[in-house]
């Protein structure tokens, strides 16, 4: 299921950052931007090209929560469960999403790699609670029903 990486693309990223090991963070960010996660093959490729161990790259990749080692869906939906959103009923929204997409707390990405559903704590938009984001676009004052509509629209677009 995991997409093999495109070495040409990886080389372009490496060139952009001068093949420097201390640029590992932006290199991983660009890699993630390309694949929406950090594919395993990228670790060994980067290790060889940058002269640092895969264990070291793994260390960096697991230190920052923004990096994902699992493939993510085309649409990454983040449901805010900060205090404000929680109080204004974010959980039913989350439950609706998981139910419609057959996901759970441990299985966060659909098999067709279309959707990933995650929770975050406080997106800094408490005035608009409850809030969710799809690929970083903010959807304010959500309800379970509005969420179902949004899902339907996204599915249709594909």
């Amino acid at each position, binding site marked *: 299921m995991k997409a093999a990486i495109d070495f040409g693309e990886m080389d372009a990223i490496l060139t952009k950052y001068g093949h420097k090991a201390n640029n590992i963070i932006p290199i991983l960010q660009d890699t993630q931007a390309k694949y929406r996660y950090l594919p*395993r093959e990228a670790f060994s490729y980067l290790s060889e090209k940058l002269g640092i161990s895969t264990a070291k790259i793994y260390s960096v990749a697991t230190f920052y929560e923004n990096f994902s*080692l699992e493939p993510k869906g085309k649409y990454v939906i983040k449901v805010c469960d900060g205090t404000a959103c929680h109080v204004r009923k974010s959980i039913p929204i989350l439950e609706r999403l998981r139910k419609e997409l057959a996901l759970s707390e441990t299985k966060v990405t659909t098999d067709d790699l279309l959707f990933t559903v995650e929770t975050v704590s406080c997106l800094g938009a408490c005035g608009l609670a409850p809030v969710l984001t799809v690929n970083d676009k903010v959807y304010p004052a959500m309800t379970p029903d509005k969420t179902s509509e949004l899902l339907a629209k996204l599915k249709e677009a594909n």
Partner: protein
Amino acid sequence: MSTEFMLIDNVPVEIAGEKNILAVIRKAGIELPTFCYYSELSVYGACRMCVVEDKWGDIHASCSTPPKAGMEIRTNTPRLRKYRKMILELFLSNHCRDCTTCEKNGKCKLQELAQRFGIKQVRFNNTSGEPDLDTSSLCIVRDRSKCILCGDCVRMCDEVQKVGAIDFAHRGSKMRVSPAFDEPIAKTNCVGCGQCAAVCPTGAIVVRDDTARLWHDISDRDAKVVVQIAPAVRVGIGKEFGLAEGENVMGRIVAALRRMGFDEVFDTSTGADLTVLEEAGEFLARLHKGEKLPLFTSCCPAWIQYAENNYPELMPNISTCRSPMQMFASVLKEHYRHSNRRVVVVAVMPCTAKKFEAARDEFREDGIPNVDYVITTQELVKMIRESGIVFSEVEPESVDMPFGAVSGAGVIFGVTGGVTEAVIRRLADDKSVSALRALAFTGVRGLKGVKEASIEYAGREVRIAIVSGLRNADNLIRQIKSGEKHYDFLEIMACPGGCIAGAGQPVTNEEGRKRRSAGLYDSDRMSSIKRSEENPVIMALYSGLLKGKVHNLLHVEYRRKA
């Protein structure tokens, strides 16, 4: 330049180029506690055990503070004592504390410091987890639940060995030391050198223990159990039994092994003598043909694995000689081929990587390994203790016939530069004792990580490099590839200082390494046979058992793992 001083607990101490106060304090004879400091590794400064107070009452980590003239430092104030106790309690609060069943019992730094600082109770809730074992490696066993995150293993594996099999992963309370993707260590590029275990202060990484199975075979009447003892072991074990560090106690080891029930006891130096002759022959042939040079030595299995992983294109340059252990093992299996008992070959080694070497497919016959057991010096210590033998009172005995003679050249294999010196002795045109002595001063001796030497052979210059530590080796290989350096012969050992400081040996320090090395050179000086080709046992082997079988029994072609 005038001498600079600092005050340590009111005593003036000279500053002589030390990089940190910790080194000055230790020079002053104060054993400051540390978990994350090793002089040969970079400074990490995480454990905070090494704290000291300056005259203004500010607290500093001494391992990461440079000394300055006029500094006034206190190492033992009520505040510092309280601070250290608290750190220890914090470590202990998520630690299992099952010392009696821990492999590291009696040698653990955490245990030692808890005792030294009189920790009688831990004020925090115990949050330790269940044992979290990785037993995938033949060389080391990891239990992540015992890890205190000092990072010593990570820095050793990366900075000294350039393997980088393990690193910190995740963060906060989930932080742990782990290979990439949390894979078992055996699935990584780990070369099994065990140096991570040698620096781990706790039982989180230990040498694999194979003694239980071995005891079983020793007591099996249908098994004939023969054992070979590597050169470095004889100078690494004495101190564990109250004798001097570096003292050659080969005779006592032989006697102890006999009492434990081993049927025949031999010396791996016999195997080393074979290696010298084979390797010298191979080197000369390559020199004459001018091909496959430089020649790399092949005694160290961790180096072999490193080359396979990183420089497969260099494999043809690596000597086809089996290591002394494997050469001798094939000779032994051949010698006892018609024995009516099951022959079990045991090797006592200073090395954890040898456990992996013994299990390689290349060294099996009909699926059965030539070496059935590799036990490290550390395991031998345990076996001697378990059997109740009072080692310091054992009368020395000599090894068994027909392999009862070894040369000094074979014995010095255990220290970096030894293999090279032994091979040069074989090549030297002038075989007088004074000429041999002169060889010792060509630059081959000493514990430095990289040594260079050159000798005259048949009217040409032969350029030699001797390296220990895989990062040093890697640097040199890069320089060779870029054309910056040229050599004809390279000796490579994974462990800094060579096998005397192998991870299977009882852990020691710089001074201990020097003594062990001196111990081996002393035995060489005292031995009546200096050169391998003068060893009558070896000559008898070539005209007997080895006839027509040299290639099969003494050489190998490594088949790279898929």
